[in-house]
């Protein structure tokens, strides 16, 4: 019986070995309903950028490092867009307490990102996000190629360097 079990387990190896290649990376974003800051319906399938790289940053109005990250990027964002065509989606996980402050804050700070509301964390859960800020980089085919939690000044340089690599067709380690 013991041998049989081993054999059966061996038979399953190819299943996992094939699966392993890509099973832990997001081949495409999960489809989840959110809202725009105007309160209009928005589905994560609409996170697109004409085949150019996409950055998704999970943040909240009460998260200081998140605001530091988005403010730091905001200073160079127009140059980034011009150079690389990258697009940043800032997904706020503010709940009903503060979700109505998201648009005033984002506008008040002069951010030019597409800001989305995920007030009950549906997209956050689907992307397995824990502590924020949590940033994802997505290549032109919709595949997540990099993710990072927390923010330190200088992280934005790493991020744009990876965007440039994607544009050159290089692999992200």
């Amino acid at each position, binding site marked *: 019986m013991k041998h049989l079990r081993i054999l*059966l387990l061996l038979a399953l190896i190819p299943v996992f070995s094939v699966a392993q290649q890509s099973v832990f990376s997001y081949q495409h974003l999960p489809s989840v309903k959110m809202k725009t800051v105007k309160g209009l319906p928005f589905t994560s399938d609409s996170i697109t950028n004409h085949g150019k790289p996409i950055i998704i940053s999970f943040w909240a109005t009460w998260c200081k490092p998140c605001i530091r990250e988005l403010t730091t990027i905001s200073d160079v964002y127009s140059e980034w867009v011009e150079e690389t065509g990258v697009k940043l989606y800032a997904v706020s996980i503010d*709940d009903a307490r503060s979700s*109505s402050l998201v648009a005033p804050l984002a506008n008040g700070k*002069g951010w030019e990102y597409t800001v989305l509301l995920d007030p009950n964390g549906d997209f956050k859960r689907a992307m397995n996000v824990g502590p924020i800020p949590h940033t994802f980089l997505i290549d032109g085919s919709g595949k997540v190629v990099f993710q990072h*939690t927390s923010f330190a000044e200088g992280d934005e340089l790493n991020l744009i360097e990876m965007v440039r690599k994607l544009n050159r067709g290089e692999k992200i380690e």
Partner: protein
Amino acid sequence: MKKNLIVCFGAAALTLLLPIVVRSQEALKGSEIHGSMQADATYYLTDTKTGITDTTLAGKLIRMNAFTEVNYSLGNFTAGVRFESYLPPLTGYDVQYNGTGAPYWYASYKNDFIDVTAGNFYEQFGNGMILRTYQEWTLGYDNSLRGLRVKFTPYHGITLKGVYGVQRYYWEPYKDYNRGIVKGADADFFLNDIFTGMKDARLKLTLGGSFVSDYQQGATKEFTSGTQILTLTLPENVACYGGRFNLNLGGFNWQTEYAHKINDPTALNNYIYKSGNGLFTNLSWASKGIGLSVMSKWIDNMSYKSDRRDTKNMVNINYLPAITKEHTYALASMYPYSTQPNGEVGIAAAATFHFAKNSWLGGKTGLTVAANFSQVNGLKKTALNDTTMIGQTGTEGYKSSFYGFGDEVYYQDANLEVSKKFGKKWKGIFSYLYQTYNKLIIEGHEGTIYSNIGVADISWNITKKVSLRGEFQGLWTKQDKGNWVAGLAELTVSPSWFVSVMDQYNYGNDDTDQRLNYYTFSAGYTHHSTRIAVSYGRQREGIICVGGVCRYVPATNGFTLTVTSSF
């Protein structure tokens, strides 16, 4: 012989299985496995100054809260499970969490028309004033429903939802109606998608409505009134329903939600038979460089739980967030407001302005100014008659009117924040706050605390990857524990390292023995989405809030290890 037989049988089985394996490879193509984990472990030290002894720690010096969640998806199918361990729970978390298990598991299927989930789920109707289930790990809060959820999208712009289940209560399994069964339905209509004539209209309108019912087995409750012992018959079904709209026109946005709950005598409202009402409204305007928002909330007897006996922050069916600003600097968040579900009425206003680079006020680098004001008062309540006290058990409780502002201030906060860059390497955020905190109402301890708070947060980019940040904070008050100062220095090296040291010093405490330093040393390493941090220090007693919920944390001293990861 026997061995050979087994090998032969095995080989045959393998041959038979191969096509299945190959086919399943095809079938499993596109499978994804993702998940996340967090572990918080603390080694506690006794500390005579803050009164932490072996007894207060129940002799358990090493404690850990941890979870691992794994989700599997294949096409339209998703399934997942979360394991949690509290061995035993960290101080400040309810001891009922002690244990380990899988409190969350689900399987779901969705396509363009239907989305079905069996097992545990998190759901929100509208703003959550009627129903919201969610989890906040750092607060030990989880009110997930276990049962069935169905969502339909029958037509573009229409979303219908139905939920049916029981809520989580620590580790206690549901049996014999030990808590209520929650049933709910919600409909959401985005008119611009439904009516072709409105498709390109500048005015965007969404309407919605919800109905929720909680069934808890009928019970009686005995109570003493004077010398008499009276028996109350408690209602089995408690319904809560309401409607909402969201109206958008260019930069203007106006959203409002109203909810009504039928009589619901509970431990929290002292078993009164009054019905509940709530209204939340928000108007905002945003344009490039300017954001304005005003909001108001009125709630009267709106606590809605699936167990009428619960007085802890568990099994809440609805969500009643505070409308006050949530502060994150240590001293600014020393006196945080939390909603009083039995009744409050409040207003809040916020404004953010950004003065662009090279403008008159913006200077070379731009300037951002944000102001915020909020005030929450009690309700204006009058007695039902001359012989009944306000809130008397077994009665209708009290009389109140729509939006009746009471005289008692529960909380007030006025604050101003200025953010400015100085050249390429220096940045500063300067805040001033004035807070009024009614401790009697919020915490049940005597007194109202008036405090002035100042914070300077300055960061210096030493090189492109290395930066140093310092916080200087002060809180001045004549009440409670008196004056505080706090300082923080944090060095970060992108993309991986940080070290920080922080001290909060209660130099103004009337009791000179309690003029303590609450110092913390921390260091951490981040690699992609994995973060490991260690800290050592003394944490002051206080209330921490995340999202809209607050939790009391006792004073602690010790070493803490935190690991978070997601994949």
